[in-house]
């Protein structure tokens, strides 16, 4: 039987975008060009042929009735937020933008703010912002998992997901902390399955048992926001019982380096090199002195008379009070379990170690005949990250991996190119008001990683210069910005007013914002002159999200099947442990209506505004379109580094670095739309200190220098911020009100503290933690418009322990109120045994505003579905450090989504059995496809 062979079908390759995982896909089109089938590309290194529920439902996204298909302008005189639009031409849209932005660029470029969601093209959006000259740019990282990135990058020089992961092929024990399913998706599912089948033991630490945790051999139901205590107690057990990799600590970390007691700085010799205390010679020797016996413990007097102690000793001292009993009180995990789990990790790492016969040479010139494997792997993401204590928790987590000696070793954590990178990795950001000038590119990158207080972007009073207050003393290491505060700050005019806010692919009027109801008011709020407080709002999206209604100008983006894209090494690539990998999207169908890829919009605008990188010396435009830009753009003239690493050089014969190749897109297409570089075996491990690898990575432009990347068990960088706060360091100083905050949270050693929102909550009144989980069949708010996926999650419940419900007098399925100090939501409850009893939870972003996404106003998403966002504030209550401090990690500005405390109580019998709060229904906009009453999708010839 061959039902399909007789059709004239066309098969094309591209890259999925139904979530952030970015699997390779193969798309079969029927003879009319309709999508017949989307399957995983079996040759693709990431997903190897598999595909998830979302990826398999791409057809329903492509033909969704929620698609925006025409540029739209808010009708003259119509109030913002009413969804009254008139269609305009692209020419008019570009004209409006060009005039407005050219004026801002010539007068005050920071009045233009560009913030994007999970856009997968930050290399381009970042370049645009920098060339425009505005510091007010970021993507969604600040409200996603920047703690994970920053905590690990500032400790081990790498991080999870795109830049590193667990080596489940060789691990025997795998411990996973809260991880959203797309971080990452299919490869992790496959790896966990194969790991289990090989006999590995999977331990999941999570307040909720869903998703990956469902198949864990052991579930550790931790209280939200307490992971730091759990990890610190395990570290204490490991150290007390000698279950740590002493040699690894000495050789590859700063554990044995001496820290001065007087200023908390690492003791250095005249050349600036760190020092060890050599027990053999009873004196100081330079770090890595051959034959020395460096001390990990004790206190020693230096030649200048001051006292110094090894960093490890300070860590041990820090852990002294972190007993399993202490952690049990905080986490709810029995002390005996903490001890048992710590021993299991330590004993597996030490006693089941193995050697791989791979010879390599370290940065100090020593040759090693083998690589040591330690078969204990971890994975973690948002569960640790989305708390205001996440940075220090992740510092602790990184040190747990370090104690076990599992960094870039077989069976443990492994890096992915372009990581590891120096600590911190850079780039240099702008640091002073003068770095922002009219008609001039920004002097520095809009996002980077400060190495010291002097890298902060603050004015002479130490006050913020970015609209989101990133890189200020409020959140110094806010590597990904603070998108969650942009609207509130812009509305308040704090630190200043802006003119135009361009939001790409982020639903900031609904599920992507905290404090949703108030933020919706801010978007519409006017000043005393009747002018909108945020004067001009541009929204670029492919779909009619809740944000669209608030736009003054709507730009219809394409779907992933209609566009060119790069999954670039300059952004967040899809590298494998064994080498860099990048990939592309190439259109497989024509854009619907007048949809235009956002990249084309940016290239067009950049050309019209004559941004230098997009303009020839004679003033003419440099790039015809986005594909042309991708081929020909180089990070610096002649650098040979561009957006794509594959098939560079004039004839495509060079990898990673080489001249532009005019046939690069064709070569990607021929290879199934990805490029995978395979490194030699001797570069597969120990890359922080692997000379061959580091020299190659430097040559490829991944790192600015090839020095070894020594693990920061003790963070001198954090200590520098603390010294500034204590007034003991020259250079930039925090404002007085923030000194104590910086001094407290910039501890050079990890510590556990209650999340800040919890510290400021009445936990007698609001005793419960409330968190969200991301369902595997939905990507954020994106898939309620998807006829197939919305049948899997049509609405959401608030899940909780049955005892909790009964204590408050309600039963499974009842309508209840869930209330925080900031607001309340009426929801339906569902009793569950698979949740820590002090926690309630729900699926993220299933609730929708009535009428949004071209659903009917009676769709379950808006009548029974709900958001927890109404309970969560974007700002902390006024407290000692200020009135409008972001509800975020004080180090990184990571949004504290999971810190809210709530109570639950039954709805009254006469109350409506519907979700509350409710808002005015959104209406379809001009150009949206008709919403059918029945879908009976069939692409092909009917028999």
């Amino acid at each position, binding site marked *: *039987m*061959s039902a*399909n*062979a007789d059709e004239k079908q066309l098969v094309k390759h591209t890259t999925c975008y139904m979530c952030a995982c970015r699997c390779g896909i193969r798309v079969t089109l029927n003879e009319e060009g309709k999508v*017949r*089938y989307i399957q*995983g590309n079996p040759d693709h290194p990431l997903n190897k042929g*598999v*595909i*998830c*529920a979302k990826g*398999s*439902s791409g*057809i329903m996204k492509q033909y969704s009735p929620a698609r925006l298909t025409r540029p739209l302008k808010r009708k003259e005189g119509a109030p913002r937020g009413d969804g009254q639009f008139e269609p305009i031409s692209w020419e008019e849209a570009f004209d409006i933008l060009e005039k407005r932005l050219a004026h801002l660029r010539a007068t005050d470029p920071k009045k233009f703010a560009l913030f994007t969601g999970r856009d997968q093209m930050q290399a381009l959006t970042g370049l645009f912002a920098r060339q425009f000259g505005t510091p007010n740019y970021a993507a969604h990282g600040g409200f996603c998992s920047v703690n994970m990135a920053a905590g690990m990058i500032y400790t081990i020089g790498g991080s999870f997901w795109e830049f590193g992961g667990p080596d489940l092929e060789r691990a025997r024990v795998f411990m996973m902390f809260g991880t959203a399913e797309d971080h990452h*998706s*299919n490869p992790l*599912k*496959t790896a966990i*399955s*194969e790991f*289990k089948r090989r006999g590995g*033991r999977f331990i999941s630490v999570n307040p909720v*048992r*869903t*998703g990956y945790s*469902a*198949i864990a*051999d*052991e579930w550790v*139901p931790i209280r939200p926001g307490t992971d730091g205590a759990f990890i610190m107690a395990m570290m204490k057990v490991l150290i007390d019982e000698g279950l740590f990799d002493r040699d690894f600590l000495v050789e590859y970390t700063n554990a044995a380096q001496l820290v001065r007691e007087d200023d908390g700085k690492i003791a250095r010799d005249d050349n600036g090199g760190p020092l060890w205390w050599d027990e053999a010679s009873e004196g100081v020797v330079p770090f890595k002195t051959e034959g020395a016996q460096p001390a990990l413990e004790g206190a020693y007097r230096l030649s200048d008379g001051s006292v110094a102690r090894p960093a490890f000793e300070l860590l041990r001292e820090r852990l002294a009070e972190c007993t399993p009993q202490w952690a049990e009180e905080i986490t709810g995990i029995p002390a*005996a379990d903490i001890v*048992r789990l710590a021993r*299991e990790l330590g004993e597996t790492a030490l006693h089941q170690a193995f050697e791989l016969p791979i010879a390599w040479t370290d940065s100090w010139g020593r040759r090693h005949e083998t690589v040591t494997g330690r078969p204990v792997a971890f994975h973690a993401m948002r569960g640790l990250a989305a708390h205001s204590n996440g940075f220090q928790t992740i510092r602790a987590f990184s040190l747990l991996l370090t104690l076990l000696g599992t960094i870039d070793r077989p069976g443990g954590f492994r890096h992915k190119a372009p990581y590891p990178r120096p600590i911190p990795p850079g780039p240099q950001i702008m640091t002073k008001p003068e770095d922002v000038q009219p008609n001039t590119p920004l002097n520095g990158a809009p996002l980077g990683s400060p190495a010291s207080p002097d890298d902060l972007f603050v004015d002479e009073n130490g006050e913020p210069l970015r609209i989101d207050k990133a890189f200020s003393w409020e959140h110094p290491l806010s590597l990904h910005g603070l998108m969650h505060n942009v609207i509130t700050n812009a509305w308040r005019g704090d630190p200043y007013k802006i003119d135009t806010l361009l939001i790409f692919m982020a639903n900031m009027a609904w599920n992507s914002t905290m404090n949703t109801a108030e933020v919706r008011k801010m978007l519409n709020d006017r000043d005393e002159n009747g002018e909108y407080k945020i004067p001009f709002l541009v929204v670029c999206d492919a779909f009619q999200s809740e944000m669209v209604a608030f736009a003054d100008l709507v730009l219809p983006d394409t779907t992933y099947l209609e566009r060119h894209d790069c999954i670039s090494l300059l952004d967040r690539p899809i590298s494998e442990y064994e080498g860099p990998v990048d990939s592309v999207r190439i259109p497989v169908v024509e854009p619907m209506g007048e949809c235009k890829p956002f990249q084309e919009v940016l290239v067009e605008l950049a050309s019209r505004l004559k941004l230098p990188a997009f303009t020839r010396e004679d003033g003419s435009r440099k790039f015809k379109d986005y594909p042309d830009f991708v081929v020909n753009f180089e990070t610096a003239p002649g650098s040979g580094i561009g957006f794509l690493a594959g098939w560079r050089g004039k004839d495509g014969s060079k990898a990673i670095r080489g001249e532009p190749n005019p046939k690069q897109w064709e070569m990607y297409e021929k290879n199934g739309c990805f490029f995978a570089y395979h490194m030699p075996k001797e570069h597969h491990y120990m890359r922080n200190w692997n000379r061959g690898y580091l020299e190659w990575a430097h040559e490829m432009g991944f790192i600015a220098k090839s020095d070894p990347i020594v693990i920061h068990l003790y963070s001198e960088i954090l200590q520098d911020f603390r010294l500034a706060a204590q007034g003991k360091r020259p250079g930039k100083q925090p404002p007085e009100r923030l000194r104590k905050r910086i001094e407290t949270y910039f501890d050079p050693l990890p510590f556990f503290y209650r999340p800040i929102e919890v510290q400021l909550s009445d936990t007698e009144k609001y005793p419960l933690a409330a968190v969200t989980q991301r369902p*595997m*069949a939905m990507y954020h708010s994106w898939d309620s*418009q998807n*006829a*197939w*996926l*919305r*049948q*899997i999650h*049509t609405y959401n419940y608030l899940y909780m322990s049955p005892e909790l419900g009964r204590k408050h007098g309600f039963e499974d399925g009842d309508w209840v109120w869930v209330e925080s100090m900031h607001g309340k939501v009426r929801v339906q409850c569902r009793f569950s*045994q*698979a*949740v820590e009893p002090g926690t309630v939870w729900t699926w993220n972003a299933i609730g929708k505003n009535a009428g949004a996404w071209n*659903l*009917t106003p*009676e*769709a379950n998403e808006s009548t029974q579905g709900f958001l927890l966002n109404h309970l969560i504030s974007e700002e902390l209550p006024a407290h000692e450090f200020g009135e409008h401090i972001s509800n975020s990690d004080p180090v990184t500005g990571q949004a504290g989504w999971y810190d809210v405390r709530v109570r639950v109580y039954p709805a009254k019998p006469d109350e409506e059995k519907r979700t509350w709060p409710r808002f005015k229904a959104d209406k379809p906009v001009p150009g949206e496809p008709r*919403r*059918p*009453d*029945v*879908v*009976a*999708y*069939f*692409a*092909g010839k009917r028999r």
Partner: protein
Amino acid sequence: MTQLALVIDLNVCVGCHACVTSCKEWNTSGSAGPMPDDRPYDHDPSGVFFNRVQTFEVGEFPHAETIHFPKSCLHCEDPPCVPVCPTGASYKREEDGIVLVDYDKCIGCKYCSWACPYGAREFDEHGKVMKKCTLCVDRIYDDSLPESERLPACVMACPAKARIFGDVHDPDSEASRMIRENHGYQLMPEWGTQPANHYLPRHIRGGQTETS
């Protein structure tokens, strides 16, 4: 005699629903399609799916387990849906044991769905015919596909590799081996239907203390 079937490993299934929508995507435009969706953008949307994942909990906190349980037609060796069919539309193939519905003969009486103890049949209200899993019979013998892809769509998609397709009568097949080695079981054997599809149970690996 060949009996094709699916072996579903509950020990690795994370409940991602890839099998659910990849099935729908393949089959709605395939020989068993279309698979209509009513009220697709309205309240209580309801569509035809040949494969669904049910999720339930077992045990009490803190020893509770969350089980994701994918279910489709089990292609019984003695399928109760076949003898009840008044027109012969519901039939079991001699050559490979797949249970199919001939839409041209089906009069939509629904006897088969009442007879099926597993609730595995799906009625198409628009075509007025009964539909169900075909084990992607329009893929597995399609010699225009590479041999490695002559598999049911759900098996190709499954990221956890929790679905094994093969001949459960052939003791050397991977499917038979997995059943043998992992305590594979049939669903509700007391009904005597002898489902060809098998499930592999959860098994917990070490470590858990009795202290808590």
